[in-house]
């Protein structure tokens, strides 16, 4: 490699509690060390947060929020805006599906808090290297990389890597550890550019790749060799068995037709039969070619094999025989139905291209669908790939499309053609077919997001029990509880899929076994409530209120596509607003959706609203 090592630190830090009592270590689960890197001054600093702080925020999303809060009103491109990588206490332990981590900053796409849970091996390597997280601020004068090898940190010049696609970066670096990088899309200012992990896993949503680019940070590699201390390995083994047993009992996860066998694409046929597959930019909810674009079609044509995150046995990722990724459900759906594309190869190639350029597939496909609606041009086949390339390079039509569908549609004078909330495009579940999903898209603190509350669990997948998908009854509290739950899952940092069968009851057992901190399902849920409310406080500081917690008007005025014996009517606006008002009450917000001092005090959150 031609790179010059410009800065290098050996960060010998006393391991918390090396002095100890009894078992040799005072801190279990957490490393007790956060690495702060300033790319402007090329300096580093090690912080050792007390266990009380770690236990209060758990890790991942929760802990990331505490580093984001002081800077949240800065512009995302301000050098002082931190880019935060945070693991959780369960990472690098035998706790199931716990190899994930959270990447957070302020979202360039939405202006809200931006955070995304990502898999692969980065979280595990970070923990192995002895760090709970890394907070990166400042801006390098030229493109650079960060190389972390256990307690050594280097900042490396990397001007020659500018323009490199994510797959080439991963190959170029040849690390035995894990890589994080951005592609050309982020370098060229794509608002929905992502961060790529290990060449295959994406911190996809919210445009966080752009924050990396604003720091001139092209890549990181992290290699670790340490172990994470587990307080009670025997108890963790029992918790693990409880979780495995529940996963095995889950048809959606482990069943013949479930995620283990078909990837998240397993949802595709179901969305089709429920008539909630967003089609033609959400103008229809049923795609006539779905039967030939389903996971079975991929399996037959490409003979798929499975792979997945470190520390997971569900292995939700699928590959073709020649090693290309089979798209995730959202991508599979949006690059087929949303664009009315009937060619499998186009979907696979669009997915590959987005990953290599480094941009979010959901926003990319939805932005093309918005373009198609506004221009009246059919965007299928090679035209899809051409436009994606244009976006990734910011050239021709891409110059405007790279700003996302909301900017694009507004610039074209047709804002209603952008199917987005707070500027982020909706995922592949039409809200007219699942009213909890409608409310969840609106209340999500990072713009339209299906994962914050994932009501598809009960509205479609019948887990833990089925609810009436065409009703708002009871949904306000269900959404609030699910948001709390997923906030804590993203803090632990575990995989949300597993919670379609296991629950915080089993994970509380794992958490306590790992950390030694007493906990229960409800204690964790209470931490989740605090973490989620913290999001709301940060968003309010940037002016987000009820006006932003809303859906595109199309869903209230146009019906979806009905099926045999059922209609998919437009959402009832009054009912939606009533459910949202209830949500605000339940969440402890005021009628405008703004946080209150009273709730902040109850949740022991700092108040500067």
């Amino acid at each position, binding site marked *: 490699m031609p790179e010059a090592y410009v800065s290098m630190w050996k960060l010998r830090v006393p391991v918390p509690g090396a002095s100890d009592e009894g078992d040799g270590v005072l801190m279990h689960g957490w490393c007790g060390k956060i690495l702060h890197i300033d790319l402007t001054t090329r300096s580093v600093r090690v912080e050792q947060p007390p266990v009380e702080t770690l236990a209060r925020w758990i890790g991942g999303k929760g802990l990331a929020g505490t580093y984001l809060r002081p800077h949240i009103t800065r512009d995302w491109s301000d050098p002082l805006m931190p880019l935060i990588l945070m693991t959780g206490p369960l990472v690098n332990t035998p706790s199931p599906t716990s190899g994930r981590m959270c990447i957070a900053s302020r979202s360039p796409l939405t202006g809200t808090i931006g955070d995304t849970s990502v898999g692969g091996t980065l979280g595990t390597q970070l923990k192995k290297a002895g760090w709970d997280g890394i907070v990166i601020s400042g801006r390098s004068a030229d493109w650079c990389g960060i190389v972390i090898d256990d307690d050594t940190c280097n900042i490396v010049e990397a001007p020659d890597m500018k323009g490199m696609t994510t797959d080439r970066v991963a190959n170029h670096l040849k690390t035995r550890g894990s890589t994080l990088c951005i592609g050309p899309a982020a370098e060229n200012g794509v608002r929905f550019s992502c961060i790529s992990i290990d060449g295959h896993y994406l911190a996809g949503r919210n445009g966080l790749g752009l924050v990396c680019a604003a720091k001139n940070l092209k890549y990181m590699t992290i290699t670790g060799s340490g172990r994470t201390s587990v307080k009670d390995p025997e108890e963790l083994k029992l918790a693990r068995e409880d979780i495995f047993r529940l996963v095995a009992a889950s048809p959606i996860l482990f*069943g013949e037709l479930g995620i283990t066998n078909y990837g998240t694409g397993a949802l595709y046929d179901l969305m089709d039969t429920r008539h909630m597959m967003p089609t033609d930019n959400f103008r229809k909810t049923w795609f006539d070619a779905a039967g030939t674009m389903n996971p079975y079609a991929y399996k037959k044509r490409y003979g798929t094999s499975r792979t997945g995150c470190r520390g997971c046995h569900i292995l939700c990722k699928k590959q073709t025989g020649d090693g290309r990724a089979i798209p995730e459900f959202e991508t599979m759906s949006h690059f087929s139905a949303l664009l009315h594309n009937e060619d499998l190869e186009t979907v696979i190639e669009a997915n590959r291209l987005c990953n290599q350029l480094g941009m979010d597939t959901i926003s990319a496909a939805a932005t093309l669908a918005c373009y198609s609606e506004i221009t009246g041009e059919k965007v299928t086949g090679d035209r899809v790939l051409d436009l994606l390339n244009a976006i990734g390079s910011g050239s021709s039509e891409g110059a405007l499309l790279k700003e996302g569908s909301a900017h694009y549609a507004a610039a074209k004078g047709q804002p209603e053609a952008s199917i987005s909330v707070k500027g982020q495009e909706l995922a592949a579940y039409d809200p007219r077919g699942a009213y909890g999903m409608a409310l969840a898209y609106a209340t999500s603190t990072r713009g339209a997001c299906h994962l914050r509350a994932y009501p598809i669990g009960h509205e479609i997948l019948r887990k833990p029990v089925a609810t009436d998908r065409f009703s708002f009854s009871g*949904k306000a*509290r269900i959404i609030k509880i699910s948001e709390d739950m997923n906030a804590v899952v993203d803090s632990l940092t575990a995989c949300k899929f597993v919670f379609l069968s296991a629950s915080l009851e089993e994970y509380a057992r794992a958490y306590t076994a790992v950390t030694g901190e007493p906990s229960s399902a409800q204690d964790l849920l209470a931490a989740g409530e605090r973490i989620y409310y913290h999001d709301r406080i940060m968003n309010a500081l940037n002016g987000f209120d009820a006006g932003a917690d809303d859906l595109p008007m199309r869903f209230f005025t146009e019906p979806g596509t009905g099926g045999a014996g059922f209609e998919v009517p437009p959402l009832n606006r009054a009912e939606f607003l009533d459910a949202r008002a209830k949500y605000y009450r339940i969440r402890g917000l005021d009628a405008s959706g703004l946080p209150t001092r009273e709730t902040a005090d109850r949740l022991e959150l700092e108040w500067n609203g």
Partner: protein
Amino acid sequence: MEGMIRKYADKLVKVGLCEPDAPLIGFLDADVVWNRPDPLTVELQKVFDSIIINSLLFALPTEPYRTMIRYLSRSGETAIYPKDCETRTFLHDLPIAGSPDAATIVAALKRRKTLIIPEHGIITFGTVSPEQAFIFYSSVCFSVFVKFFSDYLLQLKQGTLTDEFRQAFRDVRRYVPERIHQPPARLAVGPFTQENRVIEAIIEAGAKTVEYELVDSFFGNISYRMGDTIYISQTSSSLDELGGCIDPCPLDGSSCAGVTASSELKAHRETYLQTGAGSIIHGHPKFSVIMSMDCDEPDCEQRGECHRRCPRTRYIDGVPIVPGEVGTGPFGLCNTLPAAMVGHPGVIVYGHGVFAPGKVDFTDAFDTLLGIETGCRDTYFRMVGE
């Protein structure tokens, strides 16, 4: 949601788990709604205020559950540890506490889905719907029943029965009906060649299975094979309410639309392929579950692992008992059940329930299910000296 809480309150009474007016169910969205007024709601409101849930169910069960709970919690036990599959998979254990005050309830429900308060009732909750609370309640009753009868048989064999247990057993025995039921009038006659007929037949068979108390919490699953399609009840569906809850699953897997199908789809599918059966009913009849866990090999090297690996093939009245956990994991019953279905009238899965195949409709499958349970019940009472 008012409709939901009334529905589950009525259902608890209808299936004999509660006396009329015993169930107290609250649902909280923005405000709490109760199915009826009760002084206890003051204390339960505090529970709603203290933990993050949306449904609460509190009810005193009927006999014989009350007596069983009294006995099982006799000397200040803090939990009951039944060994059946339901408890193992979903409830883990059944905590017990002394008084129905908010602090006690909150402390228990923070970590578990249920709390037994002897002489007062069973309390359960939901975070999505009152149906969860209902399911947990019904599961507790089932697990308590299985635990009580299993313990009695075991201690009788070991010669460790106390007078107290004998008395409790006599008290309980009075409430267990003499014979389950007479065989039913015939169900719809197959073969069924149209989808709507298949679905009607499945709905009918499901309702009968619940009516005859051959399943707990109304789970279990039912399927029918028509040509190259398996019609199967969905996951988390109540067998007495299968309308709209049946998934058609192509045998060749060409659609994943059945991803909501029962967790036992694979076991059903393999059974169809290996046995040529045309229908399958899977229920959780109590005495079949109890008898499946009765094993006379205290020194077996797999003791404690019986639900996952049993080194011997055991039979009750010619019906094999196989190990296997719910679903499709490495120890899943999909690995053990289908082969055992070949050449046998039905199969009992250890600590879990019965799978009964039929030829062209559900009549023979139902008779088999009922027959196995009746046989297990008779065997049990013969073994305890009746």
